[in-house]
């Protein structure tokens, strides 16, 4: 064979391969085959991993078995860059039909026209019924500019976990006021003690300024305001008062001590979370998912005496809000370019129990240790049974219904705002920076970004 012929053959081979590669995407089957043949496929992206993933897959299986029109295909994308993958899919014109998320992104994405407002999917009757059906916090989480863009399927509520046994040992009452909390901190870890402490009564976490700011009476934003400058209120007096109070702990122990103490928590994950590990805290703020950790620790104690824990709401200062705090949660969004929006809506309703199937939603919430988004689901026998088995959950469920549970305000720069406030609180607690100055910087930065985004929208 001559060189020329060999080369020709090689080129034919390369060309065939290239054409095959280019044609491959077009060969993807468009309809469902097998058990669900003929149904419309709903592509569902979610971030659930570990044991929660099994619960998710169970809900999907129940939905697929419940009707004959749609089939939901769940795609798990655990990790921290779900946003990035979503943006790429939107830019590429092939987003999922439905996505579950838990970051404060509804305002950012809705303002940019990426999300389908739910009034395009639901009937008027459904929407009005839904508004009363879900808890206020769930409604706020999905709303941007007075329009519902996301449907919340689970709430994350924070409260104080108190080690009753440890408090009793020091003759300390459960914290009902801010002064009680300060007394617990001072009694268990006196300010004049040696550095390198291994136990704290209470120590504020910088990320929890979002919760304490609300408890002290702040709201972080005035969504009814007309200008971006008036809309962002991170430097309002109640938020400043909350941060000043948190800074008191940094002054009491020293920023280096506070930062070093917090660090130990990185090494304590899962069931050995800081409240349990070596009784690191007498009181700490955390979410409802820790109930499961406490139960598991008790179950693995092999009959040894374990500490008793009690959950209490965040105590409010005079003039503050009761049963208040920062709430986030898991929510569904439907991209504007989704191909199967109706199927997505049917699945969302099914998951939260709004499709006359509250008992199914209750079973899922009970299995996952999640907080339902509606009273009707809480009242189901399956969830009531879960509350009897895990009594610590009860306080979280009660708080979930409170109108004083506030999410990060639904601004078009909410994601950046959330980080700016956290960075301000970290600078105060870990560096000893001035609270007023840091909050003003965070607010000014967000105002400038909001002005830019608002100008572009005009």
């Amino acid at each position, binding site marked *: 064979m001559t060189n020329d012929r060999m080369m020709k053959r090689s080129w034919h081979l390369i060309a065939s391969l290239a054409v095959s590669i280019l044609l491959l995407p077009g060969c993807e089957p468009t309809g469902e085959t097998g058990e669900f043949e003929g149904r419309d496929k709903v592509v569902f992206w979610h971030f659930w991993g570990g044991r929660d993933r099994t619960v998710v897959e169970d809900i999907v299986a129940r939905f697929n078995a419940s009707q004959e029109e749609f089939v939901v295909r769940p795609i798990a994308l655990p990790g921290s860059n779900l946003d990035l993958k979503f943006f790429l899919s939107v830019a590429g014109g092939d987003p999922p039909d439905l996505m579950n998320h838990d970051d404060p992104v509804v305002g950012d994405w809705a303002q940019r026209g990426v999300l389908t407002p739910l009034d395009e999917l639901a009937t008027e009757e459904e929407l009005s019924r839904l508004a009363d059906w879900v808890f206020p916090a769930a409604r706020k989480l999905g709303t941007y500019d007075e329009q519902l863009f996301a449907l919340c399927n689970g709430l994350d509520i924070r409260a104080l976990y108190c080690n009753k046994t440890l408090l009793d040992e020091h003759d300390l009452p459960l914290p009902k006021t801010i002064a009680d909390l300060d007394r617990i901190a001072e009694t268990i870890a006196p300010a004049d003690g040696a550095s*390198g402490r*291994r136990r704290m009564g209470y120590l504020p976490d910088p990320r929890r300024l979002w919760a304490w700011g609300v408890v002290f009476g702040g709201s972080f934003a005035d969504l009814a305001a007309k200008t971006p400058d008036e809309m962002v209120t991170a430097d309002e007096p109640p938020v400043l008062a909350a941060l000043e109070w948190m800074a008191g702990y940094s002054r009491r122990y020293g*920023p*280096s001590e506070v930062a*070093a103490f917090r660090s130990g928590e*990185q090494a304590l994950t899962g069931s050995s979370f800081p409240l349990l590990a070596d009784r690191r805290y007498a009181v700490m703020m955390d979410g409802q998912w820790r109930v499961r950790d406490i139960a598991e620790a008790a179950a693995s104690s092999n009959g040894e005496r374990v500490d008793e824990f009690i959950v209490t709401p965040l105590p409010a200062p005079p003039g503050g809000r009761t049963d208040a705090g920062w709430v986030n949660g898991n929510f569904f969004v439907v991209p504007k370019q989704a191909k199967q929006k109706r199927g997505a809506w049917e699945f969302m309703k099914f998951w939260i129990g709004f499709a006359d199937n509250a008992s199914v939603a209750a079973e899922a919430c009970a299995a996952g240790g999640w907080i339902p988004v509606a009273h009707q689901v809480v009242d189901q026998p399956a969830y009531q049974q879960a509350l009897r088995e895990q009594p610590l959950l009860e306080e979280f469920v009660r708080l979930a219904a409170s109108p004083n549970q506030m999410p990060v305000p639904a601004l078009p720069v909410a994601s950046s705002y959330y*980080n700016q406030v956290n960075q301000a609180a970290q600078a105060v607690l870990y560096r000893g920076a001035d609270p007023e100055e840091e909050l003003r910087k965070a607010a000014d930065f967000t105002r400038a970004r909001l002005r830019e985004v608002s100008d*572009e929208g005009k």
Partner: protein
Amino acid sequence: MHRRRLITGLLMVSPWLTGFLVLTVYPFLAALYWSFCSYDLLSEPQWVGLRNYRRLLSELVEGGTFAQALTNTAYFAIGSVLLSVVFGVALAVMLSWEVRGRAVYRTLCYLPSVVPTVAAAVLWIWLLDPQQGLVNAALETVNVPPQGWFQSTSAAALPSAWPEDHGGRIFGSKDGLLLMSLWGVGNLLVIYLAAIADIPEQLYEAAELDGAGRLRQFFHVTLPMLTPVIFFNVVMGLIQSVQAFTQIYIVSDGQGDPAGSTLTLSLHLFLSAFKDLDMGYASAMAWVLFLVVMLVTVWLFRTSRHWVHV
């Protein structure tokens, strides 16, 4: 025949050429265009002229996030390059000595370089834990107070960043990153070892005849002969340290924590583009970063004639 060979040649390099044009040239030029736009990734870019550059300038003047990121990047880049040269050369010289078990020592020094970045970062989080980390435990044995490392905003080389109550606890998150960067010094070690092996033996013999001891031989023979390699490593190290991302993302909780003390330009760029949906601003930052690195590289080349032995 000539034309045919040219076409064949071009076709042969076409996979690389396509990759270069699509994955390097296009993003490079697209980023330049976007730097003059407001672009949120989700809708069409809108031309805004110099607004993104003006914002960078005002943040630089007023000490905003960009200034903080630039300071952090400079601290990390200068520190990691200096440390890598000092430790790299020192280790290479010691490993070039004829001692028993030299191959084992060389292997041990190179071994960390093959550990994946993510695994190494997680390992360092544990090693530098202020309360339970091995590094602080070792420091305690020589009466050095436990350092804050990744939990502290302090920086040992910047007294203005030391907390008021530091009591000797001056090493913070940026210093932790510098320690981590030494983990990969094994790669440089190989280059330095090869360069040392290339130094003509006669130079040492001549120095010895002139009465030079080991230290003098190092400063007057080894070091000057290594300067071309040091220069290469400084330039490459500078570029790599400015682009460092993965390990910083992991130890800083993906946010530049605590309080922005590990927010380097690459991380700030990523967060601006993909979290804050501000690709225009991020692109402007990328171009400023590119220009800064280019200027520093040019400066290094210009000054090299004074200190690089040729």
